[in-house]
């Protein structure tokens, strides 16, 4: 997540700078080359999805240990076909089962994060109370802990709560993630204190200030948290793999590992379809994402 975030941040910043400062063509060329290098795997996906199975197998034979030399990828397939998409979209109901599992899981997590994280973030941003810094620091520490560290405790807790092999086993820990709180907190801190003070003077209660001042003005941070959260939970792998035994409850991210290497073309088609919702969400939340990421770097 961290490395992907860095790439996105770098790309967003580079793109912004290029648009605003009209960088020289040399700089543009360097960036384009770097972007091409970074995006190369992305460009392979649609090409591979449109190749027929024999072509994909022939190209990937050296990678699979069935041929000599190196795999030479064709951006444009020699024998384009929609067979893999037809098979995926028409003949693979399992794909849809997992797709809707992912949609439901992601929606539940994001909704839960908003319900739990928004008040927390607002509290850290709007109120000054004893232990606030310690508590916030604890949030940051929790945010920095990798999943592998939390795996065993989470497993034990979920077992005790009889939530193992249930969607809640993935959703509940994610709802209480501290990262969106951190992002939204940064958004709320951008609101001038005079604005909330004026609202109080005008007789607004704390809930009114939260709903009518905090949420509209902190919208960008919230959107950024939602977009980042979506991108993370749409591609969730470790948690469902660890806590969901029943395949019918799996998210789409676990569908790809089920596909054998001999079905590489089909796997590329799955990748394309997995990518589509993420691209939509990214495009819709791009502005908010840029600003939200920028908040992270702002010192409060």
């Amino acid at each position, binding site marked *: 997540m961290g490395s992907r975030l860095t790439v996105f941040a770098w790309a967003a910043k580079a793109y912004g700078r290029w648009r605003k400062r009209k960088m020289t063509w040399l700089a543009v060329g360097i960036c384009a080359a770097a972007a091409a290098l970074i995006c190369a795997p992305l460009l392979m996906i649609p090409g591979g999805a449109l190749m027929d199975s024999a072509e994909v197998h022939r190209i990937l034979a050296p990678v699979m240990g069935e041929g000599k030399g190196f795999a030479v990828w064709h951006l444009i397939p020699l024998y384009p076909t929609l067979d893999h998409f037809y098979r995926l*979209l*028409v*003949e*693979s*109901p*399992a*794909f*849809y*089962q*997992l*797709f*809707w599992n992912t*949609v439901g899981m992601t929606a539940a997590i994001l909704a839960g994060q908003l319900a739990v994280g928004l008040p927390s973030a607002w509290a850290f941003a709007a109120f000054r109370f004893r232990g606030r810094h310690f508590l916030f620091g604890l949030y940051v520490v929790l945010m920095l802990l990798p999943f592998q560290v939390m795996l065993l405790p989470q497993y034990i807790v979920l077992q005790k709560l009889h939530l193992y092999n249930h969607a809640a086993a993935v959703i509940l820990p994610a709802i209480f993630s501290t990262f969106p709180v951190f992002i939204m907190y940064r958004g709320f801190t951008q609101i001038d204190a005079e604005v909330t003070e004026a609202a109080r003077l005008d007789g607004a209660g704390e809930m009114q200030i939260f709903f009518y001042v905090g949420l509209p003005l902190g919208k960008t941070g919230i959107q950024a948290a939602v977009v980042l959260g979506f991108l993370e939970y749409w591609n969730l792998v470790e948690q469902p793999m660890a806590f969901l035994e*029943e*395949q*019918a409850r*799996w998210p789409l991210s676990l*569908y790809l590992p*089920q596909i054998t290497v001999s079905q590489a073309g089909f796997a590329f088609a799955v990748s394309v379809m997995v990518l*589509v*919702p993420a691209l*939509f*969400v990214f*495009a*819709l939340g*791009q*502005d908010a994402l840029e600003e939200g990421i920028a908040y992270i770097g702002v010192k409060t």
Partner: protein
Amino acid sequence: MQMESKKKLWRGFAAFMAAMLVMTYVSRMVYVSRMPRVRWSSPIEASIRNQIRAEGTVEVVNAQAIIGLEGLLVEKVCVVAGDRIETGTVLYEVNMEDMLAQLAELEAQEQAWQEQEQAKRREAATGAVRAQEDYDTTVVELDRKIAEETKKLEELLEDLDTHMFRIPEEDASDEIWIAWADERLRFDREIAEKKREIEDIQLEKDKMLRQADRNIEDARRAQSAAESGLDLGAGGVSQLLERQERIALLTALSQNEGKVTAACAGDVLEVMMQSGMRMGASAVLRYADDEGSRIFRTVISQEQKARVHTGDTVRLTFPGSAEEVGETIDSIVQENGSYTVTVRLEPGVARGRTEGVMELVSTSEIYDFVVPVRALHNDGGNVVYVLEEKEGILGTELSVRSMTVRLLDKNEDYAAVADELLTGDIKVVTECDKELENGMAVKEWGE
């Protein structure tokens, strides 16, 4: 980003999600439509009733052969193998001209022989008469001689008696006594000599009569031999009888215009002659006599052999005939991995039939697990597919699991199987509209 662009993106996103929703149903429908539909049943405790049916052939035991009339020319063959013949059916015709020529020649030979024989008989009869005459003459002649000598002997005896009355006086001279005694001695000698002569003549008579008897006997034997034909010898008699027999045969055949007919009803099995052929002494036609015995022969598999035993009663039917018989199996012989079953039929059964069908019903012991035979698949062994629920990506689905079982017995409808994992509760797939594979998801066949 412009609001308009965002709206387009939202619309696009919504359209994508809607399309995914629609395709979810479409893919499910496609998946389900391709899913094999199965019917199932649980194994039951039952016995296997087997009806063994085997087609076979009806074969004739000891077929009758018609021997050709040696030396005759076949004019026309009137039957072929497989023909049904009745008593009097013309089998073939001989060339009349050729046959009549042979008959005439034989009759001429017979006539010549008859004349020769009559001459022989006459000669023998004459010889016999002459021998009898010689005998009679000899008897008369010798009897006459004996009578003469006996008369002379009687005269001598009378002379002797007379002489004895003339005995000399006691005081007669010695010369007289000597003369009387000499005379007496002469008489005694002559009498003894006459007696010897008579005995000699008697002996001569006996000898002559024996010889005459022999001559008569020889003459009579010769006459008898001539009359009976014994003088021909064994070969001659055989030839004579053969000729006479052939003359009778050809005569009868000529009266029947050269047509040879069947003596009894049956079926022609084989014809070994053709028009224009001169027949030899071998068979020219083989046929199955209706009254003769037949056997039914069929081949059964090793699997069927386990249910068929020697002595079992089987039902035999014959295609094209309403005839139905119950017979017992006489023998079962292994031949090249299969078994030949032989059933001897009663005389008169399966007349004119060359094919038959054997049926036998046997009931096995009671088996614990009997499934419809449709449930049994041959996939490198005997396999049944068991219906069970399986957790997968699509949730709980019905799927089939292959289970290798031991086949204990089966008939056309049911199979008795055994395996440690078999229970009475399992669901065995009995019918499916597609080829099944292990682990394949299936759905139950709706009513």
